[in-house]
């Protein structure tokens, strides 16, 4: 029974290895990849349902008791994020054959893709800090493979920077784990939390907490550590950008959420107040970046940054309302960033350019694509019937309740500017006269639109069905705000 918890990691891992051997038979690999991801999505949703019904599933690997072995903790938060990961994965795997060249597919796109999913699911499910580092490396290694796939000049140049920043932050992660191990003598998250609680987070532990924050902030692109993100994210194929935008920074946010609701919670005046300021700066700088460019891919890539700021704001406010806002926003943002990258990828493909100044009148040829972009922009900005609204509402409610009005105002203005930056694509690219740079013969867009529509459906459902989703989000936030529940469920004493 508890062995089920490792399957979200094991299935993509085995699929990745299997598909590496079949790389020459592209039609077979494509259909196998589609079957595996869909089957996995169904399995993970069932597992998620199971976890909601009967509480978290904890797997002590190799039958070693909790603090001594590696543990896999499938609690409601981790399973929700794994489920969202798999939803994005399904859309990407159906989008991949349309947007990738056959050569790229033959050069191990699918194995790298499945290993990325392995790493992301592993990072969500692990209950051990060093294991988290290893899963970070698994997903980063796969992402290095994906980012250079295609071997263009620009790709090589940008991936070099991407690899360097991640190598450095990984080494910082190892160093920080060494610090923490020296103080508490364990790498199991529950036991670390327990021991930090016992000494009431003495001075040095806050320092280590902030070091951890720096490591995860580099992965999650929080001000002032976001400068590496936009360019490497737009150079690979759109489907790779969508995977990165949807999953990678969110793993960093998840790690911050976990460590700062479980381990370093005893000095919130210092750590969590710092988060609020950094969140405000992240929002402002991210949205300025999004407004500063005419490249549609870059606009979306910059829009990752203010979203991360919103999630950090919820963690910084540290109340039940704001944490549930963060959770709602996290799930919403994974889905919408995936679909936005796919949409702009499709637009750049049909228009033959990603420069906004060279486009115009696309709506005459591609109405479906245009209206999907319009809906996605509204979702991203947080217009009421869609999913972005509820997350932001909860965050702002949390902010008002804590009387942090400055961040509330920053958040509202940022939302407005996000809407402006996205609608600019719609107005300049889709409205107006037909541009003469466009190819005269319209491209068939149906294969592009289905995966995007699939993702957008979830976005709309998450907004319209908020009444059904909200109770489980709230119970998750309650669970996160009470770290003793996590500790007791693992160290049964």
């Amino acid at each position: 029974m508890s062995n089920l918890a490792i399957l979200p990691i094991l299935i993509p891992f085995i699929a990745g290895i299997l598909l590496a051997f079949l790389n020459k038979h592209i039609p077979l690999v494509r259909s196998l990849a589609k079957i595996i991801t869909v089957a996995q999505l169904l399995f993970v949703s069932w597992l998620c349902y199971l976890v909601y019904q009967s509480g978290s599933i904890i797997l002590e690997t190799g039958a070693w008791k909790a603090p001594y072995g590696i543990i896999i903790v499938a609690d409601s938060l981790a399973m929700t994020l794994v489920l969202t990961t798999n939803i994005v994965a399904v859309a990407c795997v159906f989008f991949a054959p349309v947007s990738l060249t056959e050569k790229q597919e033959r050069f191990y796109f699918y194995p790298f893709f499945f290993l990325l999913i392995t790493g992301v699911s592993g990072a969500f499910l692990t209950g051990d800090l060093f294991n988290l580092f290893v899963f970070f490396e698994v997903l980063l290694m796969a992402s290095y493979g994906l980012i250079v796939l295609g071997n263009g000049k620009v790709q090589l140049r940008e991936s070099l920077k991407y690899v360097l920043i991640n190598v450095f932050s990984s080494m910082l992660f190892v160093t920080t784990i060494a610090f923490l191990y020296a103080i508490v003598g364990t790498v199991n998250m529950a036991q670390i939390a327990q021991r930090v609680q016992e000494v009431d987070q003495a001075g040095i532990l806050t320092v280590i907490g902030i070091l951890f924050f720096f490591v995860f902030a580099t992965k999650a692109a929080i001000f002032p550590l976001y400068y590496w993100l936009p360019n490497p994210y737009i150079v690979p194929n759109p489907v790779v950008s969508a995977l990165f935008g949807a999953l990678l920074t969110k793993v960093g946010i998840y790690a911050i959420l976990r460590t700062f609701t479980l381990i370093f919670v005893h000095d919130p005046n210092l750590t969590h107040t710092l988060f609020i300021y950094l969140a405000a700066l992240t929002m402002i700088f991210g949205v300025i970046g999004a407004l500063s460019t005419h490249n549609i891919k870059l606009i979306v890539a910059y829009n990752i940054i203010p979203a991360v700021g919103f999630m950090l704001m919820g963690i910084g406010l540290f109340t039940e309302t704001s944490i549930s806002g963060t959770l709602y926003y996290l799930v919403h943002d994974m889905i919408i960033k995936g679909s936005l990258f796919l949409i702009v990828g499709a637009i750049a493909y049909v228009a033959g350019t990603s420069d906004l100044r060279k486009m115009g009148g696309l709506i005459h040829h591609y109405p479906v694509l245009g209206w999907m972009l319009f809906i996605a922009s509204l979702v991203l900005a947080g217009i009421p019937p869609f999913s972005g609204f509820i997350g932001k509402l909860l965050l702002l409610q949390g902010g008002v309740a804590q009387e942090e009005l400055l961040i509330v105002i920053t958040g509202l203005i940022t939302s407005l500017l996000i809407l402006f930056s996205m609608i600019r694509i719609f107005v300049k690219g889709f409205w107006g006269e037909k541009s003469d740079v466009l190819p005269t013969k319209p491209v068939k867009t149906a294969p592009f639109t289905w995966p995007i529509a699939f993702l957008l459906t979830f976005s709309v459902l998450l907004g319209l069905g908020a009444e059904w989703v909200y109770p489980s989000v709230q119970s998750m936030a309650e669970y996160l705000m009470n770290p003793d529940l996590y500790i007791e469920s693992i160290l049964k004493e």
Partner: protein
Amino acid sequence: MEIIMSVLAGILFATGIYNILQKQMLRIIIGTALVSHGAHLFILTMAGLKRGAPPILTEGIEDYADPLPQALILTSIVISFGVTSLLLVLAYRASRITGTDNMEELRGNEHE
């Protein structure tokens, strides 16, 4: 002993970061290697360097060195080895295709 090792790890970090801030690609990669050496040395040091037998179960020995950090280092070494080899190949390809190994010349133009 721990203090000497910490200072050594500090020197490794400082030289590593100095090298990372250089312009030449190969120097940067040497810098990352130095930083990872520093990090690995640091794990070993932070676990405590008290004297004890190697962590192999032998009869009649009570006092062992802490085995956990050694396992952590081994994992981390293999990972950084993999990443470094990837980085070297990447730098080789990038310098072949762009025709330069100077990071300042690898800035991107906005629209290309």
